[in-house]
C-alpha cells in the first residue's frame, strides 16, 4: 500500500477525469424522502458534478454492478435438429466510486463465495477483474452497526481509498492502475500531521457508532435457538417481499431459468438474484415447498448471514450496513432480531441453575 495526500479540489479533478473516461457509477441523489431527507443510489455518473461526494448511504448496495440482478449465462441456438451453446465472460471495465468500507468488505465476501469455493464463477471473475473501486470513509449513521461486525475499516479489495482529513483526503493506493492514474495529479507525501489527522479521523468514526449488535458466540446461540418462538414472531411480520435481499450487499442466492425465444430458434439461460424470503424459494419440482412458513424462511436468512459462514469460513457475511433494516416495511432489522434472540436465552428463567460452588 502506498499513501498520499491530495487536496479536495485536486481529488475532485481526479475523479472527474476518471469518470469522464470510463463507464462509472457513483452515489447520486435520486429523491427526497417524506421527511425531507435526501435519498441516494449508485447510479451512472459521467462527471464529478453529478456525484454526491458528501452522501450518507445509498438505499441499495453496489452488489448488482458486479452481480447483476439478471444475467445471461449462456445462449443456445437450435439448428438442423442440433444445438450449439455460446458462453461469454466478457465484461466492460467499470469504475465504482464512493463505496464505504462495509460495501468493499461485502465485495470481498462475495469474492470469497464466488471465486474461492470449489466452483469459481467465471462470470463474476470477469466483472470483478474489470472493476476499479474507489472507496470513501464516512461517519456512521445512527443505525449503522458495521463496527459490531468489524467491517468499519477495510484494507483490501479496492484500488484507491480516500479518508477525509479536513481540507484534504488521505489516500490509500492499492493498485498500480490507481497509482499511475494519480501520477497526473498533484499529491504529496503524508506529513506527520496528516498521519495524526488520519488517526483522529479513525478515532472519531469508531466513537460515532450508536448501534451495537452483540454477535459474540452468535453461531452457537443460533444453534440453540433453532426452535425458538421468536422466529414465528418476526416471521409473522415478514411481508415475503424480498426487499432485504435485493438491497443487501452480500445476499447472492439466485435462481436459474431458461427462456426460449419467441421464434423458437434460440434460448437463453439466465441467472436471477432471488431471496430466501420469497414464498417459492424452497419449492421443488412436483410442488413441495420445504419452507412454506414465513418464520422458517426468515430464520434461514439469519442462519445464512450469521451462522453458516461463521462456522464454515470463520466469518459472518453480514457487514452491518443495515440496508435491510432500513428498507424493511415491516420493521424487521438485524439488531432487534438478534437482541430478541439473545434476550430470550439470556433471560430464560426456567433453565437457570446455580453455578457450581468454587471449592
Amino acid at each position, binding site marked *: 500500500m502506498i499513501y498520499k495526500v491530495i487536496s479536495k479540489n485536486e481529488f475532485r479533478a481526479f475523479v472527474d477525469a476518471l469518470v469522464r473516461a470510463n463507464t462509472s457509477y457513483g452515489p447520486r441523489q435520486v*429523491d427526497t424522502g*417524506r421527511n425531507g431527507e435526501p435519498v441516494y443510489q449508485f447510479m451512472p455518473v459521467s462527471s464529478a458534478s453529478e456525484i454526491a461526494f458528501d452522501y450518507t448511504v445509498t438505499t*441499495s448496495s453496489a452488489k*448488482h454492478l458486479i452481480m447483476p440482478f439478471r444475467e445471461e449465462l449462456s445462449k443456445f441456438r437450435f439448428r438442423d435438429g442440433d*444445438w450449439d451453446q455460446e458462453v461469454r465472460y466478457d465484461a466492460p471495465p467499470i469504475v465504482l466510486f464512493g463505496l464505504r468500507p462495509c460495501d468493499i468488505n461485502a465485495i470481498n465476501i462475495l469474492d470469497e463465495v464466488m471465486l474461492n469455493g470449489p466452483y469459481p464463477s467465471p462470470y463474476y471473475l470477469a466483472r470483478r477483474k474489470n472493476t476499479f473501486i474507489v472507496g470513501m470513509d464516512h461517519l456512521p449513521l445512527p443505525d449503522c452497526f458495521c463496527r459490531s461486525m468489524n467491517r468499519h475499516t477495510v484494507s483490501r479489495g479496492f484500488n484507491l481509498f480516500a479518508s477525509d482529513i479536513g481540507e484534504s483526503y488521505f489516500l490509500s493506493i492499492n493498485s498500480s492502475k490507481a497509482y499511475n492514474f494519480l501520477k497526473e495529479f498533484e499529491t504529496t507525501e503524508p506529513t506527520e500531521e496528516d498521519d495524526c489527522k488520519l488517526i483522529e479521523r479513525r478515532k472519531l468514526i469508531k466513537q460515532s457508532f450508536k448501534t451495537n449488535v452483540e454477535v459474540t458466540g452468535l453461531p452457537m446461540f443460533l444453534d440453540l435457538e433453532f426452535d425458538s418462538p421468536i422466529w414465528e414472531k418476526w416471521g409473522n411480520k415478514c*411481508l415475503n417481499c*424480498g426487499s432485504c435481499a435485493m438491497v443487501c450487499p452480500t445476499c447472492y442466492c439466485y435462481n436459474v431459468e431458461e427462456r426460449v425465444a*419467441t421464434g*423458437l430458434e434460440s434460448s437463453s439461460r439466465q441467472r436471477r438474484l432471488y431471496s430466501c424470503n420469497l414464498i417459492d424459494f424452497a419449492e421443488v419440482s412436483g410442488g413441495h415447498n420445504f419452507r412454506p412458513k414465513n418464520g422458517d424462511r426468515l430464520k434461514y436468512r439469519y442462519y445464512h448471514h450469521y451462522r453458516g459462514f461463521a462456522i464454515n469460513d470463520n466469518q459472518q457475511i453480514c457487514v452491518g450496513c443495515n440496508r435491510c433494516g432500513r*428498507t424493511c416495511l415491516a420493521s424487521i432489522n438485524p439488531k432487534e432480531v438478534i437482541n430478541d434472540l439473545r434476550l430470550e436465552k439470556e433471560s430464560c428463567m426456567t433453565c437457570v441453575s446455580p453455578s457450581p460452588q468454587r471449592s
Partner: protein
Amino acid sequence: MNHLGFDTEKLKIGSFDFTCCEGCQLQLANHESTLPEFLALLDIRNFREISSERLDDSDIALVEGSITRSDEVERLKAIRAQAKVLVAYGTCACFGGMNAQKNKFPKEECIRTVYGDKQIDTMPEAHKISDFVQVDYSIPGCPVSKEEVERIVVSIATRSPIALPKYPVCVECKQRLNTCLFDLGEVCLGPISRAGCDAVCPSGKTVCLGCRGPADDINYASFTELVRDKGLSTEEMREKLAFYNGFTEYLNHEG
C-alpha cells in the same frame, strides 16, 4: 415443423372480448420487434384486432373482459365448450377489473349516471369469468405484459411448465432501484401484489394498484399494520385494494 423433438404445430388461437377496453388484445399486436415470430407460432382463427377470420375451432381461447350482461354468460359458455384451453386474459377477465367499481353502487344509480334515461340491460355486478366457466390459465395485468404473454404462448408451444411469479412487485421494484413509495408518503400495493410487470407503475412514481391481483400467500395483516404504522390512511388503502377487484377475499374477510 419439428423442433427439438417437439411437434410445434401452429396453435389455433381465438381471442374474444366482453366488457373491456380491448386494450389487452391490442397489446398482442404490439411489441413489433418479435411480432412476426410471435404470429408465426399462431394460427389465428378469430381475432378481430388483427384478422378478418371468423372461425370457431380454436385450441386456445383468450378471453378478455368482465361479464356484465346475461347474454355475455351464454356467449362465454359457448366459447368454453369449443376451446381446449381457456385463458382469462387481462385484469377484467381475471378479477372483474375496474368495471367492478360499479358493484359498490345501486344498479339504477349507475345506469342513470352513465346512460341517463336510456334502458340498459346490465347485471347488478361485474363478474370475473371464472364465476361462470372453468379457467385453465390466467394472465392478469392492466394491460397484460406482452412479454409475459409471449413467454406463456412459447411455453404452451414447447410443452413447458407455465407459471406466473409468486412473489410481490417489491422484488422487481427494488431491482429497478426505485425509491420506495411508502418512503415518499404513499400507500402502494406493491408488497402484496403479484410481480411480473417489472414494477412499471412505481418506476414512474405511480403507486401499484394491484392490477395483477394478490401474490401467493400474502401477509395481509402485516400490510395493514404497515399502513397504520406509517400514519397513512387505511381508507385510501381500502379504496386502492378495491380498484381492480383483485383483493375482495381480503377486504370481505376484514368485514
